[in-house]
């Protein structure tokens, strides 16, 4: 296998609190290949956004990150902050959830672009800046006639297109998109997803798409990682994971997604745990319909199902490490609405 473009190794991100830290990302490893679209899914509070921001080194004050984020073989976490910053933009881009709040209302669209390009590519002439900006905006469907307008003159979907263009104009190798369509209407959401799915074709960009909607993953991604309570519990090609989810959490998430084909409503009891003091053993065991005795006691060990799939669940072994009687169903109290998400 060739070296992945972006390789995250044993990344941990902790948020400081007055007591014990919140372990929002806890020993996560993930690869993203060139021109690959990887979906990162999970419920709110599972650490998806923190992982996305950890990759870019954009963590709030009070957060601490350790591990490796390797881009083209360079570990960004070893670099001094000023050198890391030079990677952000030209190499690693970020698209946020709320397009309304990310554009400066006092700046024209043209000024957003010239500021960005001048910061990262000071040698570009004004003509080149305009040409490149208009080209990128055009591919996102924003006509050149609107280049001198202000953000308030655009609709929500147009603003998100502008945000994407603003990230792409620097031609990053990897783009992290954190719920890029959550605040958009369903038709506009479809339009933006089509643009994102075409990024690899049109811009050669790899994409990490963070979402809670599995429909979006099915539509736009090549590979997917499922995150629960700070850990990646399953990873694999989208088709394989949807056809045969290996982790009970993935299966339950799939069952609770409401689509036109849904025949009956389903939900996962309880809610993701508090990440200050997560449950012992497998973190999903209190909500897991398949939980065994071993799940409450021992932390599961990552298993490879095949070359491209891995899962963190005792159902997939290793059997020799399960103590005798460990495979019996776990007896526990029913989960009430008191613990609901």
């Amino acid at each position, binding site marked *: 296998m060739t070296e992945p473009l972006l390789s995250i190794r044993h990344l941990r991100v902790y948020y400081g609190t007055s007591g014990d830290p919140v372990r929002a990302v806890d020993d996560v490893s993930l690869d993203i290949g060139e021109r690959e679209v990887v979906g990162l899914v999970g419920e709110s509070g599972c650490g998806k956004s923190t992982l996305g921001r950890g990759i870019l080194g954009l963590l709030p004050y009070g957060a601490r990150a350790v591990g490796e984020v390797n881009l083209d073989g360079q570990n960004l976490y070893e670099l001094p902050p000023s050198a890391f910053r030079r990677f952000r933009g030209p190499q690693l881009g970020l698209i946020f959830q709320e397009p309304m709040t990310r554009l400066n209302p006092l700046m024209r669209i043209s000024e957003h672009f010239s500021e960005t390009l001048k910061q990262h590519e000071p040698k570009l002439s004004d003509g080149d800046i305009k040409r490149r900006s208009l080209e990128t905006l*055009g591919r996102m469907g924003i*006509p*050149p006639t609107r280049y001198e307008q202000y953000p308030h003159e655009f609709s929500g979907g147009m603003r998100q297109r502008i945000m994407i263009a603003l990230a792409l104009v620097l031609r990053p190798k990897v783009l992290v998109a954190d719920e890029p369509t959550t605040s958009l209407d*369903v038709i506009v959401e479809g339009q933006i997803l089509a643009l994102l799915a075409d990024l690899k074709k049109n811009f050669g960009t790899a994409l990490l798409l963070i979402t809670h909607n599995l429909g979006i993953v099915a539509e736009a991604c090549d590979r997917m990682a499922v995150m629960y309570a700070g850990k990646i519990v399953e990873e694999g090609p989208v088709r394989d994971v949807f056809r045969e989810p290996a982790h009970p959490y993935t299966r339950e998430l799939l069952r609770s997604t409401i689509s036109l*084909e849904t025949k009956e409503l389903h939900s996962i009891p309880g809610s993701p745990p508090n990440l200050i003091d997560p449950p012992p053993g497998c973190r999903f065991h209190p909500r897991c319909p398949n939980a065994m005795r071993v799940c409450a006691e021992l932390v599961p060990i990552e298993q490879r199902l095949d070359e491209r799939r891995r899962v963190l669940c005792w159902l997939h072994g290793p059997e020799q490490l399960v103590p005798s009687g460990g495979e019996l169903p776990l007896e526990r109290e029913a989960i009430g609405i008191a613990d609901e*998400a």
Partner: protein
Amino acid sequence: MRPEPVAPPPQPGPEDAPLVSVRDLKTYYSIRGSFIDRLAGREAGIVRAVDGVSLDIRRGEVLGLVGESGSGKTTLGRTLLGLVRATGGSMQFEGQELTGRSESEWRDLRREIQVVFQDPHASLNPAMTIEQAVGHPLQIHRLMRSKEQIRARVIEVLEHCGLAPGADYLDKYPSDLSGGQKQRVVIARAIILNPVLLVADEPVSMLDMSVRAKILELMMALKRDLELTYLYITHDLATARFFCDRIAIMYLGKVVEIGPAEAIYADPKHPYTQALLHAIPEPDPERAVPRDLPRGEVPDAAMPPLGCPFHPRCPSAFEPCGWESRDLRELFESRWALAAGEPGVEEEQALVGDLDVLARPSSKVRLTAGRKAPEIVGLLDRIRAEDPAEPFWRGIERMEADELSVNIDFHEPHEPQLEQVGEVEVSCHLYDPTITQA
């Protein structure tokens, strides 16, 4: 002209009479323009948020009101709740007229009509305990005075909404609860007065997928137990499918399709309904097909398109749909966006000149071009040859250059009206027998 005498409508028994009957309802907002406009007392315009909607909500049914942002669905809900004033038309609730009521009359009525909003975090006062929040309506309406009585009733509704034992929640604050629990509290507060009608405005769209089903199930159980009637406002036809007996699809202030839910899902008639259904991502990569989505977004309701409001985005639009100046502008703009950076685009922009002359809606366009007029017509012919299937071209009746200008006449715009087609009513020229397709 004297109106023809009409036979008095049959007097339906109270059981079959609709609970809510809305006729030609209009809710307009006026836009405050610039400072100068205000000094001069000018109004910058009006937004027809709800523009002539007629519909019934039958007792015990769930009516889904579906559309994108800007469709007017939320404004219609708010008008029914008396939170915004209707500009015209009528709405009756249990036979009483609601328009033109005073605020205090509305207050009495709100015992019967309650609401659940989209954002449970914003719907609860962070400084009120759950007991205060849920019991507040009882105090406002002075239905119960003793603290013990109120507390007992609060516990009862909390438990009815799944928050059991209710006593455990009384002293909690909204910040102690998860999103799903907060929405349960909001629903408990809405049912504590035993309302007849519940307006639910996107009650699950802010919640995680894993809890949406639970809240929908709760709402269905409450409907059964309390014999509620719902107006379910949403942009999501997937959740509406589980919930609604009938569906009304709104676009830019108007109902474009309305009928039994089954009929609408089985055979959507309006191209907009079809688009909304197509746009829902299917969580099955084996079935993911490239989707044909309508271009663009919901237009500005202050200046709606001529003719059918959906025509600029509609893949099936044809001659009578209301083609006009702004569609020509859009044609140029999307062409130049697609080809930005390629040679020739700047020349085309220079040739056509300022597009702002096309901003005013009109089905007759004069582009002042002088000697360049034939060149512009030539450009339009070239664009047409590149994609003759583009619906826009069907809208042009006449296009020619004279010595001063390019003159384009579009076909006369016709506004579609709701017509019965099979089991549903649709407002679309495709189904209008008086319009024959060329």
